């Protein structure tokens, strides 16, 4: 296949809007190729989108669907010759997730939080999501074994457990959510700061985070730790964010990437002492990212209208339910986590929501290096991912931001710096934030770029970058980005003119990390006792079986002697 005459953006390879042909052979980008010719003359061409943080599969998704039949009624699309039926807006069914990502030009999406014991369910849903490649991050932040290893300062055993846990969950990376808080919630409390000890375990969130970061690098995992801060969602929490990032400054990365990825930064960039004087601290956070190099973030941009909040931060969901007078689901997970789901609506005239909206945009615009930023809505917490084109058009057009701000509560002007920000992102920066950066941050070497040998995941939009001025023509940008002209996944055309034309099964990425056998044996003998005494299932029934990954892609990692780079 040859894509002819497109205006190609491939920032990872130093290509910033050049007219060139892209050749595809055997599912990969190639030097040359024959076969089908796709006429992309003058059109915007870029690598397929990569979502590094989205909630797309697992028990909390189904909890959301079951408690929200009202949501499932939105976005209903009947079955077609190619497609299974779609339902839902904030909590779409599995099929809709795959089709809607593909229509946006996205070809990869990672589920951001799965407890090991419930990973089988996550994979059952991932299997049902068509088209996109996917993976799932595994939760370790309130896990009894993790906390005991940290308490005993036994990083060898912890490394073995993390490697085993990733294998058991067929997981891709280490996710930490409100570390220690999930355990404290087991008796209805929470941890209040990174130095607040976890009840019964004699460790602090700070110690958990540092130990998992060190072990993550010891195991040379493709992705860094992926962190949801303590105190997320609370006024004044920006200090917790910076205090936590400071803990990790001296850790050396084992690969060419960050040491910590911060999940949905927007929810942790809050000033004020309460909801009344709530204000943006995005500029302070962006300054911190501008001055340091060990952290990356995704936005967690909010979108006005309905959302469904779902997180392993169960105390946060309890608070959400109380504040919003909403129905509330909670799910504690033995020895590992807790979690919650609460429906939500973000309103333009609500002061806090207006400021939250501004914070996400401020973070993207004030952080100078786009490689440190991934565009997300923390789907469906900030709003559904189908709204990415809205965010793109906001980031590319100050005029659009001004128009929007007129419809919001006036505090957006006094409690954020957004009105004064002139920066408008260009196509290269958008491609970095939606493709190149998330792929690099996740450690997906063959994604997010169009170099020879890369996965042939390409999106082509009905936008002519040489004719359009995104600053003025933001409506066209939004419309064009909402329906890809072509989405090509692994060399197969899956979307043509915004319609799904093929729905192949994507791959599921997971990381198999090797550790010394002696460490593994030592860890397993302690773990066996946990199953004998505390788990409600047997160890032999715990691991996700191969049957649940019909198309696996295994990334090898593990403990190796680190060579000094001179």
């Amino acid at each position, binding site marked *: 296949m040859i894509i002819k005459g497109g205006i190609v953006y491939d920032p990872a390879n130093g290509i910033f809007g050049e007219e060139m042909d892209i050749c595809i052979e055997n599912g990969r980008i190639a030097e040359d190729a024959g076969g089908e010719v796709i006429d992309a003359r003058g059109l915007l061409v870029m690598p397929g989108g990569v979502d590094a943080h989205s909630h797309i599969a697992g028990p909390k998704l189904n909890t959301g669907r079951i408690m929200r039949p009202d949501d499932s009624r939105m976005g209903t699309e009947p079955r077609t010759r190619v497609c*299974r039926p779609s339902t839902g807006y904030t909590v779409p069914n*599995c099929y809709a997730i795959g089709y809607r990502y593909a229509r946006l030009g996205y070809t990869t999406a990672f589920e951001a939080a799965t407890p090991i014991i419930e990973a089988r369910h996550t994979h059952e849903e991932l299997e049902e999501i068509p088209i996109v490649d996917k993976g799932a991050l595994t939760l370790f932040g309130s896990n009894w074994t993790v906390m005991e290893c940290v308490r005993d300062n036994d990083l060898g055993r912890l490394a073995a457990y993390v490697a085993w846990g990733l294998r058991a969950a067929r997981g891709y990376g280490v996710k930490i959510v409100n570390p220690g808080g999930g355990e404290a919630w087991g*008796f209805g409390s929470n941890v209040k700061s990174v130095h607040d000890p976890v009840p019964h375990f004699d460790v602090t969130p700070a110690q958990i985070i540092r130990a998992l970061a060190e072990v993550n690098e010891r195991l040379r995992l493709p992705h860094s730790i992926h962190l949801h801060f303590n105190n997320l969602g609370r006024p004044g929490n920006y200090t917790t964010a910076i205090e936590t990032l400071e803990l990790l400054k001296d850790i050396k990365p084992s690969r060419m990437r960050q040491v910590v990825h911060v999940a949905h930064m927007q929810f942790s960039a809050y000033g004020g002492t309460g909801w009344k004087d709530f204000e943006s601290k995005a500029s302070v956070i962006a300054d911190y990212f501008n001055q340091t190099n060990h952290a990356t973030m995704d936005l967690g941009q909010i979108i006005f209208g309905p959302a469904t909040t779902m997180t392993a931060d169960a105390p946060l969901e309890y608070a959400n339910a109380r504040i919003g007078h909403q129905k*509330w689901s909670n799910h504690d997970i*033995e020895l590992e986590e807790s979690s919650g789901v609460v429906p939500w609506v973000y309103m333009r005239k609500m002061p806090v929501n207006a400021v939250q909206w501004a914070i996400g945009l401020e973070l993207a615009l004030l952080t100078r290096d786009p490689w440190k930023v991934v565009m997300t809505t923390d789907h469906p917490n900030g709003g559904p991912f189908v709204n990415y084109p809205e965010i793109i058009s906001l980031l590319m057009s100050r005029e659009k931001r001004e128009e929007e701000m007129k419809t919001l509560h006036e505090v957006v002007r006094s409690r954020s710096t957004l009105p004064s920000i002139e920066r408008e992102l260009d196509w290269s920066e958008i491609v970095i934030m939606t493709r190149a950066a998330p792929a690099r941050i996740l450690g997906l070497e063959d994604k997010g770029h169009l170099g020879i040998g890369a996965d042939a995941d390409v999106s082509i939009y009905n936008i002519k970058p040489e004719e359009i001025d995104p600053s003025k023509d933001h409506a066209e940008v939004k419309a064009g980005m909402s329906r890809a002209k072509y989405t090509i996944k692994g060399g197969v055309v899956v979307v043509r003119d915004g319609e799904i034309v093929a729905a192949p099964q994507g791959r599921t990425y997971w990381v198999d990390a090797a550790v010394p056998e002696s460490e593994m044996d030592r860890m397993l003998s302690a773990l066996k006792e946990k199953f004998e005494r505390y788990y409600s299932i047997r160890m032999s029934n715990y691991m996700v079986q191969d049957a649940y990954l019909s198309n696996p892609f295994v990334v090898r990692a593990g403990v190796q002697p680190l060579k000094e780079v001179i």
Partner: protein
Amino acid sequence: MILQIEDVLCTFCGCLCDDIRVEVNEGRIEKVRGACRLGSSKIMGHNRIKSPMIRKDGELVEVGYEDAYRRAAEILVSAKHPLLYGWASTTCEALKKGILLAEEIGGVIDTTATVCHGPSIIGIEEKGLVGSTLGQIKNRADLIVFWGCNPSEAHPRHTLRYSSNACGRFVPEGRKGRKVLVIDVRETRTARNADRFLRIQPGTDYEIISALRMIIGGKADSLPEDIAGVPRKDLIEIADMMKNAKFGAIFFGLGLTHSRGRYKNVDNALSLVSELNSHTKFVIMAMRGHYNVTGAGQVLAWSSGYPMAVDYARGAPYYNPGETSCCDLLSRRDVDAALIIASDPASNLPRGCVEALGEMPVIQIDPFENPTTLFADVVIPSAIAGIEAEGTAYRMDGLSLRLRKLVDTEYPSDVEILQAILDNIRRLRDDN
């Protein structure tokens, strides 16, 4: 040769015990260890249907599988609005095939939840569910409440493995470390294990829960001396038990879902638990009956957005319990053929619905003969999931587990049967 298989899952009730030992000799199950009597009897097997059958001149006549598949396909293709019902005692993989089948023929899928914990699901739609895995309760709960359920008879290993009598990290003493409260209309065997048994009048659950909510909300003074026959002071005592627990758990059964008030009872109980979390830690869980009725709801939810009663007649999923649920469709004569899998509606649906089933062509897929076989027009015997076929099932707390295959069989699995019917349907359609 005798084969000992460890950590087998029991495919009887929603406890989905996964610690059963089974002894297999020459491809036959000889002994079952560690299961309750209900589970043992299921695993040991009984009354298998020997061959596929088709009803001819009022009599079931043995036929080959291909004939049965073709007849089943003919029934489903010529139906205007077929019902595909059951799914609670088979694997998630079977239901996935069933959903695909329903999409292709424009049928309705409903599960046995409709005559069981369907009202609980509607309650959850109203209020959400404050829950946990069973292991969390085993490790932490110092108060266990059984409301309108009787695990001693219906979920025999529940108390020892997960709840009142289990030992856990923060309750190492087991039963001695927990208080057990039973609320029911009669003194069940479960009630005999209780520290406190509150007997209430049938149909008064809603009032009792409302009174408890008022007491916990600080409005005890507004209550009358007597609430639906229960002295106020007794309820104050029970509310105190709840508030003073470090971790409380309510398990509820059909006593709540199928007495007066139905989903409103559940809605009220869910609200009670939600409010108790302002004082302490509390969770609630439905005592699901069939071993994979929870999984059926899960598969339907991720496939269609809805956990039961999904109608595909419009090409897209449509859900409106009361309209698209099995009993309502049957009593309105709004379906004209039925595929019954892994369930026995003849014994469990209201009489009028069973009569409606008797008037339409019925396909039955099941390993075992049951009263539904008596009026089925096509009977297709299947392998027993979890014994003769692999697959996935979800425990009552939503935890998914993999069922194993213990012995070989000549019978096709439910998945294979449904695929064969689907293939026949596609062929019939191509011919037309």
